[in-house]
């Protein structure tokens, strides 16, 4: 019984300078952003989109951009009080809560037709015969506990009706190009790989027999999240609300201006080839920013339950992770802007 | 200016004398042991200001140990005593002990400051016959040259007490005579108290006011040299002193041919001097 999560009681104190007056979490979101309000935001893609669309200077608050994203980095920065908003997938808010941070999701983005536009695919090592999830039995599968890919593996096994003991989970960090390399070196049979790595893997090792198969699950959530303490600061809450609006418009802008996005972001900023960029845009499909978070919360609850069971963690209520006051903010913003 | 070597305890305040009147060195009952071997065994020594004392003794008899103690470098010496050390004390170590990473001139002027230091150092080097070698590294010098640099270093600060451990050991006869002259001139000018360790009995007699022989950890013999300078080795008083001192060192007929214990017969070995 060593889990740390039962220490949920401690209150976040090192949120970035909460004002004298705390904003209750169920109070109406303030709309006007006081002068001098600053947010530190770790959302590099949106930053770039705002830059390319010329919106970046219109933000009604001062912003410090941080090139920080993903679970471990954002939670570390949250703890240090160095970040107000982080951009992540579905797992980090769960883990952050388990580590005693109080966080709330303030924006959620999904993909249209998620099953056919997954972020991840299951990479299959050359010479290994896996055609469907059922073939996973007895295979060596790369597993990174605590990361999105790790959760995905657990969900895939669940879907395939396999227990952990039916396969060999090989613990590997999923940073950088470790997974494609592990596959190519036949150190593991199966590993979830995502983004351009899929393309890269297939083009490099496809001729050796390296393949990928879809996992058939939704892996599309993309969230902005923040700390409760930040939300309790009325000035920051107003600024976050404003940011969510800009964020939503930026997602739409990206979808509408694929070529500008490819050139400005993938090629110029990230150093990928144009072809890579086109591939990424094509495979990621179109964004879906719903006004109703209920189905997403339900899916999140399933994920939580699975993780809690498999990794021996306390149960959480998914709805507690979402600040539903923000649900209409994004959709309203696009509605007003779209036509 | 009165300070103490090692663990010397100070004599009662009543015994203390004004710095200028008292002896330059006055140590009593100095004891120093290495492990079981007692090297200095209740040794007493006093040197008057301006006095030139030569110290003879077998190899391993404790001469260097005594010098280290007087210089305050040995932390394990015991005894009572007072070392009236003038501000300027110079030590010439048995090894020349030049800092290998400092050039010759910097070695000579080590610890000196103020304007004209380099000039003084240069002059001093010239006096020991090493003009032009100021910028050499110590390890580019011959043994005797290194010794002369060490000598220059000790003389340039015009010490009031000079503790010199075989400073002329690696010098040829002529250079040695020149260095004797240098030292004598320094003595005339500044009248430092000098304790000179040497193995050369003639050198001791030629230079010193008093010659001591260290045996069994104590000053065993004390000879006043009263011959007026310049002292001529062929002077019979010189020869008499020489043979007396040599006898104390274990050599009965002066000169190189030992009439002492036959060197083939194992005899009292030098290391037994300091049981």
């Amino acid at each position, binding site marked *: 019984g*060593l*889990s*740390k999560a039962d220490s949920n009681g*401690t209150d976040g*104190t*090192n949120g970035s300078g909460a004002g004298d007056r705390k904003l209750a979490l169920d109070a109406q979101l303030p709309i006007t952003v006081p002068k001098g309000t600053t947010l530190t935001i770790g959302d590099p893609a949106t930053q770039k989109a705002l830059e390319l669309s010329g919106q970046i200077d219109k933000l009604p608050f001062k912003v410090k951009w941080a090139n920080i994203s993903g679970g*471990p980095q954002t939670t570390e920065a949250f*703890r*240090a009080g160095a970040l107000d908003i982080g951009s992540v997938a579905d797992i980090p808010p769960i*883990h*952050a809560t*388990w*580590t*005693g*941070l109080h966080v709330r999701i303030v924006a959620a983005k999904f993909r249209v037709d998620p099953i056919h536009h997954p972020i991840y695919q299951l990479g299959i090592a050359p010479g290994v015969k896996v055609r469907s999830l059922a073939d996973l039995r007895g295979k060596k599968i790369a597993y990174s*506990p605590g*990361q999105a890919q790790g959760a995905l593996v657990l969900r895939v096994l669940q879907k395939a009706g396999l227990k952990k003991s039916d396969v060999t989970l*090989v*613990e*590997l*960090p999923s940073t*950088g*190009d*470790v997974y494609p*390399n*592990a596959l190519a*070196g036949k*150190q*593991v049979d199966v590993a979830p790989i995502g983004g351009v790595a899929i393309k890269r893997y297939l083009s490099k090792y496809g001729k050796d027999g390296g393949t990928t198969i879809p996992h058939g699950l939704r892996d599309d959530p993309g969230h902005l999240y923040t700390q409760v303490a930040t939300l309790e600061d009325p000035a920051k809450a107003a600024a976050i609300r404003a940011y969510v609006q800009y964020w939503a418009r930026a997602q739409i802008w990206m979808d509408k201006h694929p070529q500008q996005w490819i050139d400005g972001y993938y090629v110029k900023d990230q150093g990928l080839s144009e072809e890579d960029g086109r591939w990424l845009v094509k495979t990621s499909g179109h964004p879906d920013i719903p006004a109703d978070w209920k189905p997403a919360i339900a899916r999140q609850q399933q994920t939580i339950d699975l993780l809690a069971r498999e*990794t021996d*963690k306390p149960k959480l209520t998914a709805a507690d992770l979402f600040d539903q006051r923000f649900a209409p903010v994004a959709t309203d913003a696009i509605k007003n802007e779209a036509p | *200016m*009165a*300070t*103490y*070597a*090692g*663990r010397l*305890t*100070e*004599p*009662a305040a009543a015994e*203390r004398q004004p710095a200028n009147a008292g002896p330059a060195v006055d140590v009593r*009952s100095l*004891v120093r*042991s290495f492990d079981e071997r007692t090297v200095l065994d*209740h040794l007493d020594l006093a040197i008057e200001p301006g006095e030139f004392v030569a110290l003879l003794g077998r190899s391993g008899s404790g001469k260097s140990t005594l010098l280290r103690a007087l*210089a*305050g*470098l040995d*932390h*394990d010496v*015991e*005894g*009572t005593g*007072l070392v009236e*050390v003038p*501000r*300027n*004390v110079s030590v010439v170590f048995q090894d020349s002990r030049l800092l290998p990473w400092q050039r010759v001139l910097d070695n000579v002027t080590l610890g000196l400051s103020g304007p004209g230091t380099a000039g003084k150092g240069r002059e001093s080097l010239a006096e020991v016959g090493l003009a032009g070698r100021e910028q050499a590294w110590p390890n580019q010098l011959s043994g005797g040259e290194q010794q002369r640099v060490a000598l220059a270093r000790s003389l340039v600060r015009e010490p009031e007490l000079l503790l010199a451990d075989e400073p002329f050991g690696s010098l040829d006869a002529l250079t040695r005579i020149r260095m004797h002259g240098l030292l004598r001139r320094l003595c005339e000018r500044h009248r430092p108290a000098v304790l000179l360790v040497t193995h050369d009995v003639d050198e001791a007699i030629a230079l010193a006011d008093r010659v001591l022989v260290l045996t069994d950890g104590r000053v065993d013999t004390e000879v006043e040299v009263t011959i007026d300078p310049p002292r001529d080795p062929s002077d019979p008083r010189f020869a008499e002193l020489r043979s007396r001192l040599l006898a104390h060192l274990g050599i009965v007929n002066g000169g190189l041919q030992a009439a002492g214990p036959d060197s083939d017969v194992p005899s009292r070995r030098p290391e037994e001097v300091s049981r």
Partner: protein
Amino acid sequence: MTTTTTATATATTASPVRVPPRTVTTAPVRRARRLGPGRPVRFGSAVGPLLLLGLWSAGSATGLIDPRILSAPWTVVTTTIDLVNDGRLPANLAVSAQRAFLGLAIGIGVGTLLALASGLNRLGEALIDGPIQIKRAIPSLALLPLLILWFGIGETMKVVTITLGVLVPVYIHTHNGLRTIDSRYVELAQTVGLGRWAFVRKVVLPGALPGFLLGLRFAVVGAWLALVVVEQINATSGIGYMMELARTYGQTDIIVVGLVVYGILGLASDGAVRLVQRKALTWRRTLAD
């Protein structure tokens, strides 16, 4: 230069002379200002770590240190007890220690041999030195994929990685140590007709020993540190694995236990080498004496 004050009086000891040296405790009044650091203070090396512990305790008690970032010392103690009781800490430590020792042993041996080959032979140097400098300059994280490729993800890869890490400081220090042996001793060895091997044994190894031991101080600590990297890969046990797991789950208290264990292991390994240093280098008379 030296002080010009007259001596201050200390108590007169009528005849302290027969007292054996070690028992006299009167502090000496000394002429020459002591320039070296003086004798070692007993348990002096504990002061810094204890002070650190004190600051940490104070910070935690007053709430200045956020327990979510750095758990309080007492939390660490109880967590440690828990971890010891449920067997996780000892088990992980044992596995890690085995890896570390194996890597250390091989690394020390190979490093020393390479240093000898490169230090005593210009051809050896030309072949060996550059690649080792390159190895050292390349981030180990970037080397890992290659090592995985060549050695798999099993124990071999882990031990090889530790070995490579250990090898570098041992090599560089030993090489530097033997290269800086005074040439006078080399001349001596030549004149007494020492053979190559005797030369290595009598002159090179003891002459390079101070350097080697300094390298060892880096190697022992480096071996433990390498665990953090290698035990992220296909490990299910080990202190590095334990910490990595705790990090991903944000279990601050376990992380801190790991840090403390690392601190203790580091201090202990380093202290052990220093002890060897003191014993093996008795022939030296240095500033520290």
